[in-house]
């Protein structure tokens, strides 16, 4: 844990509630980066970030300081994202094309010679295809492929076993490929 975080946490524990705003300021970009992989709507993203920090505040007495505060916070952010995905999964389960840009549609249509895809378009296409996956599968594949975490790190941040993470990653890849193929057929 960084010295600054430890200092702020010590002051918060002594009753200086307002010092928590310093932690929010310091870690908000990290929380946003995590949550943006799961929710692209700006308003919902703001709400999720706020929820993450409020949950962190409520759980602060349980934070023992053995792991860095940033790791602990990222675990809360992942759990918030997971809950959010489970809720939205019930509302929208069908993959639809109208939300995609022309560049992404071209990429899907051209089977052999696919053009280089811009990062935003690629992320939107992936987000759309990922709706076919379960919430837990989305989290695993996002952490592994987009955030570059190892299996061990994913286990630590999600609280799942190594076997469960590996199985989910394999299933997620399979489902993702199928979803992309279906999108390519529909485009």
């Amino acid at each position: 844990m960084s010295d600054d975080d430890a200092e702020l946490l010590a002051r918060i524990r002594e009753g200086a509630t307002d010092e928590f705003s310093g932690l929010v300021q310091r870690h908000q970009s990290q929380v946003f980066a995590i949550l943006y992989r799961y929710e692209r709507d700006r308003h919902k993203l703001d709400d999720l970030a706020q929820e993450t920090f409020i949950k962190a505040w409520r759980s602060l007495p349980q934070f023992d300081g053995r792991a860095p505060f940033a790791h602990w916070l990222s675990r809360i952010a992942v759990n918030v994202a997971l809950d959010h995905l489970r809720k939205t999964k019930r509302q929208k389960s069908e993959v639809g094309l109208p939300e995609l840009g022309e560049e992404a549609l071209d990429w899907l249509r051209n089977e052999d010679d696919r053009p280089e895809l811009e990062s935003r378009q690629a992320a939107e296409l992936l987000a759309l295809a990922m709706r076919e996956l379960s919430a837990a599968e989305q989290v695993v594949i996002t952490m592994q492929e987009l955030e570059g975490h190892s299996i061990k790190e994913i286990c630590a941040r999600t609280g799942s076993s190594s076997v469960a993470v590996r199985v989910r990653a394999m299933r997620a890849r399979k489902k993702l490929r199928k979803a992309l193929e279906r999108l390519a057929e529909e485009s």
Partner: protein
Amino acid sequence: MNEKQIEELFRAARAESPPDPAANLELNVMRAIRSHSAGQEPSLVEIFASLAPRLAAGAGLMLALCVAADFCLSNFVQPDLSSGLNQLAEQWLFAAP
């Protein structure tokens, strides 16, 4: 769709940078924390703990009042209830028929 194409898609998506956090995020979080702390319903134990000093003071005051009342009645008002009863009983027992 082959593995290479999926990898390409991942690589491109990885490069996307997230938007900047909302300018008022910190304020909103702190407002929510303060309102949560203020609006939190106290548990039964907390209610009892907060009332305990007042209950103790009330009980102490009551005791002091009782002692003072007994002292005043026994010293300045004659006869008190017990001696009055004794007197009545003696009068009835030893009263000439």
